[in-house]
């Protein structure tokens, strides 16, 4: 066990170093020039040159990389080339938005997904199952950015049930904050809810056909009771795994959701940085996403191997 965890840790560190190199080089492969993007329409050759000098873009790639990593190790992510704001501050203001949004979306997805999953199992072969199945399929098939546009159009503007956009800090004003995030969270959570629903249903059906459940049923325990006691409990493990594994998808989804609902989050920060060639911001943002992704995967893998030593994912063959 310890060896397994050790191997995974070592692998993760290696992945991280590789990732930082990929990000660093990838960012510099973007066409266009950050100095030009920064100078905007007032770019003259002299001014662009001055900015390049200021940003240290005239130094060799290797020296830029070591400066970058060195600063990183000291916790210094640099400053946004566009607004001059320290990247750490940018992250501190945008990350909570995305975390709240994602957490809310996960809650929505888990509640809706499990509910529909239970319904589908409980009413097998009747219309509620069709409905739940249909929901899952549509949830997987409909692009959520389109859903977002429609939601703004009908739910926010025409019906006025939700604000069309905007963000209120959840920590300082929880009720209003959550109200503003409701529509985006529903949109973001739809795909995840569909996946959870399918898995819940599958796992329940499996549990319901196991010997011990059949024994329990034979002893006279009602179907509903069995479903709640055994089916749901087993499916929760599956749900936790899925949420962990789908986090990357959720981050991707958040990028677009934030764009559509004009939320000042991490995703919007990323896209804006890519479009304005804000190297320090792109690097920091992608690295942070990568690190969290690696950490979460690591945690899930290790948890998984604890729960079921037979499935050690990666590096343990």
């Amino acid at each position: 066990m310890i060896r397994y965890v050790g191997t995974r840790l070592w692998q993760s560190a290696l992945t991280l170093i590789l990732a930082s190199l990929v990000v660093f080089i990838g960012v510099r492969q973007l066409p266009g020039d950050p100095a030009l993007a920064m100078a905007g329409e007032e770019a003259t050759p002299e001014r662009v040159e001055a900015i390049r000098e200021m940003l240290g873009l005239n130094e060799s790639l290797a020296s830029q990389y070591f400066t970058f990593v060195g600063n990183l190790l000291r916790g210094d992510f640099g400053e946004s080339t566009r607004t001059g704001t320290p990247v750490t501050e940018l992250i501190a203001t945008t990350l909570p938005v995305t975390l709240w949004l994602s957490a809310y979306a996960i809650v929505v997805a888990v509640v809706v997904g499990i509910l529909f999953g239970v319904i589908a199992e409980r009413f097998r072969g009747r219309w509620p199952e069709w409905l739940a199945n249909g929901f899952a399929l549509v949830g997987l098939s409909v692009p959520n950015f389109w859903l977002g546009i429609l939601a703004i159009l009908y739910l926010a503007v025409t019906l006025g049930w939700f604000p069309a956009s905007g963000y209120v800090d959840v920590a300082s004003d929880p009720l209003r904050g959550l109200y503003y995030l409701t529509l985006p969270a529903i949109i973001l959570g739809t795909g995840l809810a569909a996946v959870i629903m399918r898995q819940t249903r599958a796992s329940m059906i499996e549990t319901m056909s196991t010997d011990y459940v059949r024994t329990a049923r034979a002893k006279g325990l009602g179907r509903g009771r069995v479903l709640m006691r055994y089916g749901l409990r087993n499916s929760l493990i599956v749900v936790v795994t899925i949420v962990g594994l789908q986090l990357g998808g959720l981050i991707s989804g958040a990028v677009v959701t934030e764009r559509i609902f004009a939320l000042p989050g991490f995703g919007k920060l990323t896209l804006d940085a890519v479009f304005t060639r804000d190297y320090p911001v792109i690097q920091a943002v992608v690295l942070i996403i990568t690190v969290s992704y690696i950490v979460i995967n690591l945690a899930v893998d290790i948890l998984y191997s604890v729960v079921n030593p037979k499935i050690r994912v990666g590096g343990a063959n």
Partner: protein
Amino acid sequence: MAATEIAATGTGPDNGPGNGSASAGLGSARGRIWRSLRRNPLGIAGGIMLALVVLAAVLAPVIAPYDPTEVHFDAPFQDPLTVGYLLGTDDLGRDIFSRMLFGMQASLQVGALSVLLAVVVGTPLGLLAGYWKGFDAVISRLTDVTLAFPFLIIAVGLAAISGPSLSNAAIALGIAQIPTMIRVVRGETLRIKESDFVLGARTMDASGLRIMAQHVLPNAASAIIVQATVIMPVAVIGEALLSFLGLGIQPPTPSLGIMLSDAQQYIFRSPTAAIFPGIAIAVICLAFNLFGDALRDALDPTSTSRSRSGKKNRK
């Protein structure tokens, strides 16, 4: 993404080695697959939808009443069912129906190209990684790195680097899917490698390459095909998304994503322009998801056997 980690080992958790259909004759397997598919009405529905979508896309030049880029300055923002414009027109008076047909064509092209890329690159790497431990370490690290970047970051990055276009969008989406494909194939290879007939072939001194080509690949085919049906809708939505963000197919070439991003500009004036392209994307993906589900059930012998016993249990 990493979801397929489970899929990769997925057939693993509860079916021991040697449980595969490996030794079953191909002919009978085909018959079984057909029977299974035919018994699955949703799968049939998906298949029919898929056929219709592909037909509409392929025949777009024939069906479409207008050139998709033809501008009609005298007829912008027409409502659906206006004379001459079945689904109305957009802000430049272009026929939405025609644009949608060509947009579906582009979506399917991107989808097919990225699936092709993922299969062509992912399969051999997955085979190598699954079969030889030496390759496994290298390839697995590389897939780890790629998987560490969320799909959209890779796609946005690649599209921004290589410049936005249809083929680059397809490449970006394909590359983003390669790691999952590698994992699926690797998992299958690990499983099949341990089966009796491969062990048998090994004792008969067959070379690794030969075993891979003759035994592993054919038996991993079903998993690859299923994974392809999973990638397809992801790629179709991915194309729309990239185009929506301005990083995919570029106007004037019609694409469903571009139609959506255009329509968002004037959504209050003409909401229908945003509705139809979205429905088209959903229909394409629904078709693939339905068909893919059915195919998975049909191709995966363990699931059929399990569901059969499941049925028995319920009776």
